[in-house]
């Protein structure tokens, strides 16, 4: 019999996950760990100590050339002209119709060099999308195979990673990065993450990924470090109110609807999707993303229908238990006038309405 996992893409840490007895799943064509010790345990470890995630499936796209800024600013919604070298920001990659191709992190490496971190299952689509807009003679490279990415996340992330690098991590502010070293080898060290905690995402040579992983596991041992999978990554990002492509955002959703107006800079000049977003802004939105918490017994899950006063009104984009808050939470799209905190809603769970109430996003903010 053929092994169905044989066709899945593997990160350089695949064997490490299997050695740790991770439960592996097909995640957008990648063979990835969903959990090791258990989602709740991993989640709590990241909130209280430090967790280690393999995010090597994420894609990297490099845009270089004298006019790199022009291309970056045309394909993304945020204003990369405001980035200093060594700074990172979150941005949308939009279609002309204003929906998302993807959501991305833009790192300014130099005036003529930008490094984009993009979603795993979107990387080829993103690359083609960007390359098709390249009127500025830039070099655009789909560089995913040249990088492995490991996320060290949690209040003890800095203490863990600092043991392995001479780069002073406390000098790297949130959403900044430094090209430095880890254990003597080149590493791009970014103070970014997808958990709502302090932490770092390090980009390293794939051939050194398992070495780095093991060193980090050892360095974090005194702090109780644990490997964490995609299950905990999802509950952590959901509590922090961070969007996930395919859930809160996709080709049919605009950043204004998703509550991401803060990454749309209308004053920066033309960009893909701009005209449609301006129309949308002028006409007024019809729907918006809002948080909810369950009041009745039950868990509102992704895709469930949301009703207001008995009538269909929207849908759940992400939903599940919040281990930190110990309640069942989620995000949903609702008509604009209902998408305010304090609206009584019903989530249709197995054909029965269960009471919930809208609440602001994010659900969790770490103490600074």
């Amino acid at each position, binding site marked *: 019999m053929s092994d169905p996992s044989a066709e899945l893409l593997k990160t350089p840490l695949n064997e490490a996950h299997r050695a740790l007895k991770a439960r592996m799943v097909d995640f957008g064509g990648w063979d990835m760990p969903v959990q090791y010790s258990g989602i709740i345990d991993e989640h709590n470890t990241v909130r209280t100590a430090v967790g280690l995630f393999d995010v090597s499936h994420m894609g990297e796209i490099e845009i270089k050339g004298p006019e790199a800024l022009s291309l970056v600013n045309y394909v993304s919604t945020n204003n990369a002209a405001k980035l200093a070298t060594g700074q990172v920001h979150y941005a949308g990659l939009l279609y002309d119709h204003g929906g998302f191709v993807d959501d991305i992190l833009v790192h300014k490496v130099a005036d003529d060099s930008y490094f984009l971190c993009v979603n795993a299952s979107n990387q080829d689509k993103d690359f083609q999308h960007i390359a098709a807009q390249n009127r500025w003679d830039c070099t655009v490279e789909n560089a995913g195979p040249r990088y492995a990415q490991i996320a060290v996340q949690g209040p003890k992330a800095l203490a863990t990673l600092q043991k392995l690098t001479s780069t002073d991590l406390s000098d790297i502010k949130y959403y900044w990065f430094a090209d430095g070293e880890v254990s003597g080898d080149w590493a791009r060290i970014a103070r970014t993450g997808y958990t709502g905690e302090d932490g770092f995402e390090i980009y390293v040579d794939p051939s050194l990924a398992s070495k780095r992983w093991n060193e980090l596991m050892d360095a974090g041992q005194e702090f109780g470090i644990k490997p964490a999978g995609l299950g905990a990554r999802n*509950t952590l990002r959901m509590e922090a109110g961070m969007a996930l492509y395919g859930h809160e955002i996709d080709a049919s959703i605009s950043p204004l609807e998703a509550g991401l107006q803060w990454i749309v800079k209308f004053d920066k000049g033309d960009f893909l999707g701009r005209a449609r977003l301006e129309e949308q802004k002028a006409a007024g939105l019809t729907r918006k993303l809002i948080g909810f918490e369950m009041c009745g*017994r039950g868990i509102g899950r992704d895709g469930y229908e949301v009703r207001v006063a008995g009538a269909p009104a929207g849908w759940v984009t992400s939903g599940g238990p919040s281990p930190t808050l110990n309640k069942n939470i989620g995000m949903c799209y609702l008509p604009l006038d209902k998408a305010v905190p304090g609206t009584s809603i019903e989530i249709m769970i197995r054909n029965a309405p269960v009471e919930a109430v809208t609440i602001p996003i994010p659900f969790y903010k770490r103490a600074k």
Partner: protein
Amino acid sequence: MNYPETFRYTKEHEWVSVDGDTGTIGITDHAQNELGDIVYVDLPKVGGAIETGKSLGSVESVKAVSDIYAPVSGEVLEINTLLAEAPEKLNEDPHGDAWLVKIRLSNPGEVAGLLSAEEYKSFIGS
């Protein structure tokens, strides 16, 4: 894990233990392990009927919802109220304290058609 010899099992990973005309139903250790952290259990109402092969409720882990299929038919006599407060007990003691429902069997002959402990263990490859 020990799969009691006195239980009968389904390929959907439920078990039933019979005492006279009363059947106690639960999910297997294999099932709880596959599901991961269980955070919610939805059970039928006492007095209701459950029907072989039909969903009698659901078990939710952090990630997903799974139906529980009735291994046998009958009338619900009692549901395990412990699970409303402490669904995680299903991860700890699925063959014991964390049973799901007790029913009055409407067709006790159905039990003979279920898997033995040996057959179930071989089915899950343990």
